[in-house]
């Protein structure tokens, strides 16, 4: 009954608007470029690095509904626009071994070795409506188009509070479902591996590099200015009311004249989706973010972020060959949360909502209402739990952090839930 109720709620909240019809590969490439298992892995570890634990298990599921995708109908023998849902699931399991025993306070030192497995699956599914007669209706799902399974196997060394180092292997597998909507997990149609390294020094400086054999694809450097201040200032006191300021620089090879890019780089003359790689231009997206987390009172907190961009070459919207004048501001978001400080308990509770503004050339293509390269968005979320077990959930519409992962989700509802268990 609960499953049926949840399914009905999801269906009722789906919005079916006239929308672009995608090729499945377009969505697959978008997800793989924008949300990686490495990003999810490092985000999880950012939270775990300060915890004393032996085992942590975490899982997250995100559903984004109503993508119109060009799909074969084996009844009619034709390709047609079919409503599909994008499913993204993520799970981690981490085992930590305190070599020197866990530290008693944050300023103490300890040495921890950890092994982690993390995995990210994404793909499209089709809802199947079943009328069971007097027993009512139910909805089941089939896999549709390729499914992607990305896994990390990592080793971590944490010499707290000085340095955290993570390194390991990323394994990517692509499978094609059987015609009947089921899937066997043997014989991936594509498979590759790459290495990664990620580190954080003194809780102030973070470095993350994602590279294949030939080049750096993405690099991220962050500085926690508040930690720098408290580290070097003799009289600084750590207080929950001290603003947490983080500055981040990102280097992303974002625009490469690839068939799935929304823009051409440099110029548009003679460019096609089939041109040789030697004819392609590329431009780097440089991002500089300033994030401020501030506790206003014992019960309320805010988070504010501004992200500025610089693109290293001219870009042109493909559909109209129109030169784009990029906005200096890439993203803005503001979150307001009821997040009380609870004494004498490990229970934590956070109810939050927020607004955002996001700019991207691809917004003009994927939005379903209005025009232009920017969108305002909204988020509502609830997190609660203890140090041992917790639940997080959120509903999102055009929120900037979600559009940054998948701009194709513009003007679509997304729902996400996650659970963790830790000993």
């Amino acid at each position: 009954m609960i499953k049926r109720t949840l399914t009905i709620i999801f269906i009722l909240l789906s919005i079916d608007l006239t929308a672009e019809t995608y090729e499945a590969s377009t969505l697959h490439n978008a997800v793989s470029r924008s949300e990686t298992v490495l990003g999810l892995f490092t985000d999880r570890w950012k939270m775990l690095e300060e915890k004393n634990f032996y085992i942590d298990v975490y899982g997250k599921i995100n559903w984004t509904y109503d993508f119109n995708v060009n799909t074969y109908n084996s009844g009619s023998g034709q390709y047609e626009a079919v409503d599909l849902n994008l499913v993204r699931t993520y799970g981690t399991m981490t085992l930590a071994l305190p070599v020197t025993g866990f530290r008693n306070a944050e300023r103490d030192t300890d040495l921890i070795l950890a092994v982690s497995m993390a995995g990210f699956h994404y793909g499209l599914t089709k809802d199947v409506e079943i009328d069971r007669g007097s027993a009512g209706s139910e909805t089941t799902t089939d896999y549709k188009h390729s499914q992607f399974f990305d896994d990390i196997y990592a080793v971590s060394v944490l010499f707290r509070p000085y340095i955290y180092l993570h390194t390991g292997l990323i394994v990517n597998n692509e499978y094609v479902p059987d015609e009947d909507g089921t899937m066997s997990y043997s014989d991936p149609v594509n498979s590759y591996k790459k290495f990664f390294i990620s580190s954080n020094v003194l809780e102030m400086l973070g470095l993350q590099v994602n590279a294949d054999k030939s080049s750096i694809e993405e690099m991220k450097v962050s500085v926690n200015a508040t930690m720098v201040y408290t580290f070097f200032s003799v009289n600084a006191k750590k207080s929950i009311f001290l603003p947490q300021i983080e500055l981040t620089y990102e280097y992303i090879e974002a625009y490469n004249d690839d068939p799935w890019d929304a823009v051409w780089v440099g110029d548009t003359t003679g460019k096609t989706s089939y041109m040789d790689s030697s004819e392609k231009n590329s431009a780097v997206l440089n991002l500089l973010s300033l994030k401020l987390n501030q506790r206003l009172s014992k019960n309320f907190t805010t988070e504010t972020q501004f992200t500025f961009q610089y693109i290293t070459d001219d870009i042109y919207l493909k559909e109209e060959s129109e030169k784009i004048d990029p906005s200096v501001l890439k993203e803005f978001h503001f979150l307001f949360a009821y997040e009380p400080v609870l004494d004498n308990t490990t229970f934590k509770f956070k109810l939050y909502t927020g607004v955002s503004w996001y700019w991207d050339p691809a917004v003009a293509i994927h939005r379903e209402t209005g025009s232009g390269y920017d969108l305002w968005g909204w988020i509502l979320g609830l997190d609660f739990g203890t140090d041992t077990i917790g639940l997080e959930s959120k509903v999102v519409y055009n929120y900037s952090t979600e559009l940054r992962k998948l701009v194709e989700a513009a003007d679509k509802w997304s729902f996400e839930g996650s659970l963790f268990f830790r000993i």
Partner: protein
Amino acid sequence: MKFIPAILALFLTTTGCSYVSDSIEGAITDRSSFSVNAEYNGVNTVTLTWDHTDSSDNFAGIEIYRTKYPNDEYSEYILIRSTYEDSSHNTSGGDISLANGSTTTYSDSDLPSSYGIYFYRVGFVHWDEDPSDRTSENGYTGDTETDYYNNTDIDSISGYARVLID
């Protein structure tokens, strides 16, 4: 700490987390999980075969579904046979073999009047409560057929089997 070797062994033998998280999502959304084969004898019968069985305490029955409209893979599915007659769908009597979780075949002789390509699926249905909790407080009346309609859900469903009926 004495459990560390066992947990490490679990790590080394556990399937990648992407597969685990996907299987959980599949369980939540009732993802099709086994295959069914359909063969038309050219006259009046479609025979379905599958290799999935269910011997759990919560097993309630097997249901057979077929697309409502021909030549459309994405048509809604309707119930064509279960253990009970189900007058709401004019099914011509229930089939007691579908009350057995070990049943792996079914023959449909009540074919649609419109010829074309149809799609069949097989669903394994479960009670929504364990045996000891099937009480009046949980909405159970004691009448098996009434309780079947009100207190069951699809637990596992097959992928589709495509068949041309001409």
